[in-house]
């Protein structure tokens, strides 16, 4: 296998190196790649859309149709993980810990429903004592991470970032919650159902904006046609359209990242994790 792999790699590498032989120099501003279409984007974006960040403008407006499917790819990944791993049967064993004394109850029968008082805490099978520093720091940090994520989403047109990055950061703040406390804390706060709805609604906001443009008489995703809905913002209507779309992407990505994490770490049982 290694020999075959080596031969394949050498052949492909040689082909690719051969292809680079006529490339223009690296960083040459006169190369065809930097002249034909890209100059239009640099010179006309601000005029067309009033978005200072060219990349966001290209991503969500000029090539917005690609980005819609990119969001669909993420959505599919989340849905695929759900379909593949989700296991509704639940777990047979449960562990409870008596907090004042540290005595552990191990309940093997799944049918027996047990009501425990406040001094008993639910516990993972592979349990480590909670670290006070970790917990406190994460608890303080998480709101700030989330605010930063919202900032990244909202300022996508002006600075690096956008819906996708913001969504990932928001999702990782939720994952951080699950890691620093335990998975139950996260699952209790954000129900699986809610995450599923968020994922679908996020992509729907994107596709719905496009369809709304269709209804308003433009082509699909032509934000300019939304102007009658936002009187007073005619100049910035395309930026506004981008913002709406970015919010949709952010919601979808946030939900999907969380779904993938929860499903992988608990093998689809949503009970215990890292």
């Amino acid at each position, binding site marked *: 296998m290694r020999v075959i792999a080596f031969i394949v790699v050498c052949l492909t590498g040689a082909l690719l190196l051969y292809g680079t032989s006529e490339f223009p120099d690296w960083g040459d501003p006169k190369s065809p790649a930097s002249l034909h279409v890209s100059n239009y984007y640099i010179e006309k974006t601000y005029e067309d859309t009033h978005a200072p*960040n060219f*990349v*966001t403008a290209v*991503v969500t407006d000029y090539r917005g149709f690609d980005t819609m499917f990119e969001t669909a790819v993420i959505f599919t990944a989340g849905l695929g993980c759900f379909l593949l791993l989700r296991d509704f049967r639940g777990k047979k064993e449960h562990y409870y810990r008596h907090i004042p004394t540290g005595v552990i109850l191990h309940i093997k029968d799944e049918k027996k429903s047990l009501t425990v008082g406040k001094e008993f805490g639910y516990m993972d099978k592979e349990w480590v004592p909670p670290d006070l520093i970790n917990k406190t720091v994460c608890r303080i940090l998480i709101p700030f991470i989330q605010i930063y994520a919202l900032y990244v989403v909202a300022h996508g047109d002006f600075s*690096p*970032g*956008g819906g*996708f*990055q913001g969504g*990932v*950061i928001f*999702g*990782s703040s939720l*994952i951080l919650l699950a*890691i620093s406390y335990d998975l139950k804390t996260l699952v209790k706060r954000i129900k699986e159902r809610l995450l599923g709805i968020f994922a679908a609604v996020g992509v729907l906001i994107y596709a719905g904006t496009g369809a709304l443009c269709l209804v308003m008489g433009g082509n699909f995703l032509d934000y300019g046609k939304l102007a009658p809905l936002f009187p007073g913002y005619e100049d910035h209507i395309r930026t506004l359209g981008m913002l709406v779309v970015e919010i949709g992407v952010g919601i979808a990505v946030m939900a999907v*990242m969380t779904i*993938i*994490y929860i499903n*992988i*770490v608990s*093998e689809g049982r949503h009970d215990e*994790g*890292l």
Partner: protein
Amino acid sequence: MHWPIDIIVLTFVIFCAIAAISVKDLLGTAILFGAYSFLMCLLWTVMGAVDVAFTEASVGAGVSTVFFVAAIFRTSRRTKD
């Protein structure tokens, strides 16, 4: 001209890539893979593609590594090669 920085980072990137696929412990692979992604993101910042770098920093070095560690937690660290 940024090429000295560029070439140093690129060397590190290649080093991390080779290490990531040859280390005999999957948790080590996960961390090296995170380092690889982060160095890659540095490289892209040097080249001026800030949006891509930002995405890679949050995705490659962040969430991907978490998925990786989560998967190792549910499978095993053992690897033969």
